[in-house]
């Protein structure tokens, strides 16, 4: 008789997992041993309700004046007009006509002052919500969210960085949270590393060796089972699940019509892939658009770059809303800093972290809101000034997390977000 107490029948397996699933919730550690995954229906439910995050990184420093906080007809405003949006009273740059129509899903923070004009530091601050300190590196937003949202039912990697290059291993952005939460670069049409079976590896071999491994593990676990061995055993089941789900990373599976709607350039493809990934249950997806470091010809370059950005981004927001994903998915467009109100002699704008903006939407955020204000020509924040740390808390809160919580890292408490800051409460729905 196959059915024994220890390893269980199919019903037994599911029952045990569901029970243990409840027990282990929030522990961040897999418990469950040899079992396969919960019922497809349970996974589907979990996938639907799970919170997700899309980070759109505008490399080089997006000009707030040509995007979220235009100042037309002032000495600093530049040549572009401001246009009305789908939210009465909110105007954004005319370079973002499609995005303007999605404004009722989004919110703007216009009073950011990080007091920093350095690319590296700015990127660090905006992605970790901390000020750089020697001897200490903090995990980036995506890794924090992937770790905080981790649960044993998730079979896909929690943190993916869609990049222009090839698909590689993990990036170094999880700091003490460890490689499991570091982003995996996903580029081209390649699935993540090692998800392809080598030609000389037969399915029979894979099955046989796994079966032998399971048996040996069972025997060992009989007397020496720990949460750590469970996690190790579980990682092999996860691996198989990942191989089964490789199509998730295959953009060509999206309909041709959508390819056309998003556009054939890299950023369009990346936005479409981001949609696919969050739809399939990936917790955090990063997309990048480059390059906004416009010391020369700021207006020409923003015209071009935002022309490419606007439509796919707006399409993504619209699709997420239409598919009911936006209520679970937060999307944020951020940059290491903004650009100087002063226009330099090369018609450029320089680094400026003293009064800039971020656009965000979805999940637990207020829709169509604007928080913070700059003066008439954008040279200073005049209302509700915030730092990168406030934004970080806000993202976490919008995702339903308590940003005052700690991670337990090797016996030490590490605050999820910099305790010196707090969320922008008025943005939380």
């Amino acid at each position, binding site marked *: 008789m196959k059915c024994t107490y220890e390893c269980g029948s199919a019903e037994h397996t599911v029952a045990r997992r569901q029970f243990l699933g409840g027990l282990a919730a929030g522990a961040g550690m897999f418990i469950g041993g040899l079992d396969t995954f919960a019922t497809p229906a349970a996974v589907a439910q979990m996938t639907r309700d799970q919170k997700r995050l899309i980070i759109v990184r505008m490399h080089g420093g997006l000009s707030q004046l040509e995007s979220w906080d235009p100042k037309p007809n002032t000495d600093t405003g530049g040549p572009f007009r401001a246009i009305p949006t789908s939210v009465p009273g909110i105007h954004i740059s005319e370079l973002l006509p499609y995005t303007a129509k999605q404004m009722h899903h989004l919110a703007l923070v216009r009073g950011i002052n990080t007091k920093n004009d350095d690319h590296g530091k700015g990127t660090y601050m905006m992605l970790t919500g901390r000020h750089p300190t020697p001897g200490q590196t903090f995990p980036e937003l995506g890794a924090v969210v992937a770790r905080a949202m981790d649960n044993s039912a998730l079979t896909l990697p929690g943190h993916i960085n869609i990049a222009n290059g090839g698909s590689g291993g993990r990036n170094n952005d999880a700091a003490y949270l460890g490689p499991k939460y570091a982003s995996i670069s996903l580029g081209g049409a390649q699935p993540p590393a090692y998800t392809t079976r*080598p030609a000389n590896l037969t399915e029979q071999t894979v099955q046989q060796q796994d079966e032998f491994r399971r048996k*040996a593990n069972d025997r060992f676990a009989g007397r020496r089972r720990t949460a750590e061995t469970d996690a190790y055993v579980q990682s092999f089941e996860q691996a198989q699940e990942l191989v089964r789900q490789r199509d998730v990373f295959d953009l060509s599976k999206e309909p041709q019509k959508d390819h056309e709607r998003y556009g054939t350039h890299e950023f369009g493809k990346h936005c479409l892939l981001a949609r696919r990934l969050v739809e399939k249950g990936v917790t955090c997806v990063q997309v990048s658009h480059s390059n906004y470091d416009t010391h020369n010809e700021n207006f020409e370059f923003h015209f071009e770059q935002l022309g490419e950005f606007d439509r796919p981004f707006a399409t993504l927001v619209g699709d997420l809303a239409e598919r009911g994903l936006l209520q679970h998915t937060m999307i944020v467009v951020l940059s290491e800093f903004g650009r100087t109100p002063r226009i330099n002699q090369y018609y450029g704008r320089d680094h400026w972290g003293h009064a800039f903006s971020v656009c965000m939407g979805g999940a637990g955020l207020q829709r169509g809101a604007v928080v913070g204000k700059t003066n008439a020509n954008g040279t200073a924040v005049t209302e509700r000034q915030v730092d990168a740390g406030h934004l970080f808390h806000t993202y976490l809160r919008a995702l339903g997390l308590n940003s005052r919580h700690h991670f337990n890292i090797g016996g030490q408490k590490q605050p999820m977000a910099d305790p010196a800051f707090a969320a922008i409460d008025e943005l939380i729905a």
Partner: protein
Amino acid sequence: MNWRNTMWVWVLTAVAASAADPLYVRVDQLLAQGQAAAMAVPAGDDVFLRRIHLDLIGRIPTAAEARAFLDSNATDKRIKTAEHLLATLDHARHMARTFDVMWMERRADKHVKSTDWQAYLMQSFATNKPYDKLAGEIFMADGNATSSGLPREPAKFILDRDAEPHLITRDIGRKFFGVDFQCAQCHDHPRVDDYLQRDYYGLQAFLGRTTVFQPDVKFPAVLAEKAAGESRYKSVFTKHEGETRPRLFGGLEVDQLELASGTEWVVAPDDKNKSLRPIPRNSRRAQLAAQVSANPAFRRNIANVLWGHMMGRALVEPLDGFSADNEPPHPELMELLANEFAVMKFDTRAFLRELAQTQTYQRSSILPAQLAPPGTNVVAAWEVEIKTLTPKSEQSEGAWKKSVATLYQSVTNRLLATIELDKAVAAQAETRKALDAASKVSTDANAVTATKLDLHKVTSEAAAKAKLATDKLPADKELVDATAKFQARATTFAAELAAAQKDGETKAAATKAATDRHAAAEKFANDNRTKWKDLDKLVIAADQTAQAAAVVQQSDKFNLAKVQRRIDDAKAAQEFLPLDAAAKVAGTNYLAADKVYAPAKQALVTLQAAIAARRDAMAAAQKLRDDTAAALVDMQKQVTVKADVTKAVTDAATQAEAARLKLPADTELAAAVAKFKMRSDQLNVELVALQKQVPDRDAAAKGAAEKMAVAQKALSDEDAKLPAVQKVVTDLEPQWKTLQIAANEAKAKADAAQDKLTQRWNNSFATGVFAPLTPEQLCWSMMQGAGLVEAQRVAAEAEFAQKNPLAAGQAEDANRTATRLRTVEQLVNDRLKGNEAVFVKLFGGEAGQPQRDYYATAEQALYFTNGGTLTAWLAPAGTNLVARLNAIADAKLLAEELYLGALTRRPLAEEVADVERQLAARPKEQRVAVLQEMTWALMTTSEFRFRH
């Protein structure tokens, strides 16, 4: 075995160890005293062998080594093996790797290459350099071997951190003193009471003067040190301000040599020569190196690190979290180890040997079968103890806090005095300047006076002489005039001299005043200095008091925590036992129910399958019946139609024949009639043929109908059985289901309790520690298990022999042995080290982050499955594991080789059976594949992944 355990426990508990006993005996003694309940039994030889290899050389043993050890009857084989391993270069390599990862945390190289640094560490461990000396070199090395007399490599610790003062302060604190001061940089530590901002700046004072010196990027960066710069700080919370000389955590401020201005430098900085590296006479980093070996925190940290390295878990975790609020499970043991290591003159190898010899090291990682938790009365007594210890601890904590407040006040007072002293010294310098100026003016005036005096003397003497002459020649008008001129000059000069003398007196008076002012300023400065020194004495005294109070508060807290831990351990055991029993009962109940339910369910499933089969048969029979019936009807229809046609044609033929008979001459008609006749005959034949088929079809239809009836009956017979069988299942199912859920829940609860218990027993070293292998250990163990390491070793030996041939009959001398061992180890390492990188990437932490956390990711599993590397290692080649297995015909022997090679133990009977089954199940041509699969499987088990 049992008898020996009993003896051993008896020996430990009955005879108190004395200072004369070897360290390992005292360690076991202290540990046994601290336990709440039973400890694990000694580990078997196989477990010990795997453990000692992993801990001392960083990889598992070969199958041959395992076999030899397990088969040896020597009673001292465990300690002999430990000693043998400690003497190998593999051990030095493993220690170098371990300390590199611990100190550098896998940072990317910056100024000193990892390979050079690792070679330096390897050399240090190979020569068993005392640890305090090694640490001293790391602090003192400046990257320039000529000027410092130390190799460049140890400077990597500071150089590769760019000598960033806060970064090196924090990391030296973390790595060498076991304390993470990070938050104490800006204020007293918010979460760890006993980390003061003052502690941070005391350490920083040793390091704050150090900078990276690289005037020309074409030459390697080195370290330079300034001759001045003190550590002054201000709390962002309390605004308390202080200043400290160099001071180690748990130590006092180090007195500084007062160097006269201008003598501070060995090589003074030169503004005109920027490529000249200044070297101070007084190096603060050299002071640090000189201070450490006597410092308790330094000693404790390394004892803790080495204990953790050996035991799989440090006494204080995390390694940089030593504080009064993070007690070691056995505080006396921590102190004993710290002191004894210093007594051993920081001899790492001797220390590890002692640890290897402890029963603590050699304990099984499995919880004892009989936990034997103390009775509730014992626990109650401990709780009473808590009640007495708590106020004591609170009191000593209060005393410590008070002493810190006094210390802070004295530090503030001294700082104010420092500020006053600085002012006085500055004022003194001012008066000195004024005095110097006045003296110069006075000297100048005196010079004028001297000149005037000289002129006056010359002219007045000349005038006197001239007067004598004119007195003799009064008529000589010219002479008289000349004399008058002399006299006039003399008079003028006399006047000028008088003026100059007067001026000189004024200036002298001014100088005198300046001298007085300066003397006063000097006295004021000296008074201030004396005052400062008095206040400094108060600081030192207050510091001493605070340190003493800290020791008392820590000891009290530790004692309290120790009892509390014992209570919690006992409670965890008490909680676990009923849950475990309940889980066993629930499991048995479920199994009993399942024993009844499962066959019933099986019968139902079988019956349902049978019904389904019958239903299929029935459907088939029904279809056949319908088809045959339809075929019969069709045939009958065909016969009817055919008969109809035949009749018509036959009638027509008959009528035509009648007509032809009336018109016999009509040949055409005759022909037509013949045609009719022919067709009629033909049709009649056809009709008969059709009619003949009817009975067949009829029979077929009848047969099919009968078959269907049979199938119908069979189905209804089975269907009739269903309710009864279904009922049995339905009746059993709720109970079975309930018991199943209960069993699952009970098992989950028992598992959780067991996790907690295992963790607690691990933490207090009552069981052997269960810990994941490091990425390097995992990589090298896989290579060893697969046979790569041995293959490379053999190849390297051959290479060496070829290059360094021995003459026939010549024996190898000690020199050659040493060279050979060194060369072979280096070659093996060089050729296989490249494989570490992927393991580090997949299993390690991020660069610059702590490297001791455990991660399990799908990628790791995917790498083993699809990465190709492990599979390639398992392709049979030479004498690697799979090739060896392939050469063994007997499945039993094969299983033994497999388990010894991969898991360092002999297989259990059921495992041998598994291997046999696995081999038998597949055709011969797949034999190698099967061997690879089994080896792969064992190497990816938890048993392989962990040290246990």
